[in-house]
């Protein structure tokens, strides 16, 4: 008989994270592509990067999960600071604050994670040729989940 288990990465991290972003940013396209695909002028690609045992007891464990968020933005016309840079970095600051406000996240009183934080933002990530059309920033999200 198969054991009962909880898909922690899905139930505690990916699904709540996506719904948190969508509650703030509306219908923002969020994709989980391993390989880059053109998905429009503005979208986020989420890649799970880490699932690490932090503390272990006989009854439970605390695991640290990590997600890489790659934000893609394409603006028409010639380069301008406002269009091509300011709007992207303001958007990133808004995500950082959203996670900061919800570092211990309990949607509808159900525990999702604690100590959620955007640990690093990289405005100059390495890009494939196909990604060069976009302004791109990488965000690393980390959180702890009591399993």
């Amino acid at each position, binding site marked *: 008989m198969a054991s009962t288990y909880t898909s922690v990465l899905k139930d505690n991290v990916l699904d709540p994270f996506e719904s948190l972003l969508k509650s703030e940013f509306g219908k923002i396209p969020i994709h989980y592509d391993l390989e880059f695909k053109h998905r429009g002028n503005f979208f986020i690609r989420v890649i799970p990067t880490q699932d690490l045992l932090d503390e272990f007891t006989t009854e439970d464990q605390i695991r640290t999960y990590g997600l890489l968020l790659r934000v893609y933005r394409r603006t028409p016309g010639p*380069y301008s600071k406002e269009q*091509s840079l300011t709007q992207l*970095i303001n958007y990133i*600051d808004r995500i950082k604050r959203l996670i*900061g406000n919800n570092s211990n996240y309990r949607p509808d009183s159900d525990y999702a994670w604690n100590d959620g*934080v955007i640990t*690093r*933002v990289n405005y*100059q990530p390495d890009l494939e040729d196909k990604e060069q059309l976009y302004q791109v920033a990488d965000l690393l999200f980390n959180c702890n989940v009591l399993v």
Partner: protein
Amino acid sequence: MIDYNKTTNKSVLENLTFLIAQEFRQNPIRYDDNFNGNTYFKLTPIEDEIIDIRTNGAIREYTIEIQYSERRSGRYTRRSGLDNRVNTVERLKEILRRATASIELFLYYLTSDGKNFLTSDGEDILITRRPLLITSQDDFLITSDGKSFAVYPATYTYDFHNARLESVNYDLESERPNYLTATAEFKCLVEELYA
């Protein structure tokens, strides 16, 4: 929509732009390479990283790349190719050393005998680093009677602290062959409160 601070742009990038623009008034400040003048600075946000998480806030370290470019002219010599870059970077280091804590303020001022300051053009006054004062039109402020001044009320808006140029590289090769460049890494800490 949540309330949030545009920290990267307002506190760091615009503030750094302001500090450089004040000192190097002849050099345009760009955020891309689409420029063909003789000299310019290019600012590029590189990263920000969490340093400390507080109960209701965070301290983050921001990194901005500052690239100084000057057009090549004639044969490369120390005088034509290096000295000016070195002097520019050393001057940049000095203004950032003096502005390790950046304070910005639009408020009222009183002289030591209680009279209000007035600017000749009615513009706001901006403190870059006490006691250096300039108006928002980049004019320096001089008191007519040589009296000292006090800030009232004595509150400041905070932008960043612990600012420094971490590393400087006098590039041997440039992405734009017509230009000689020096690239410096600017870092600063920003404490943000979520309340």
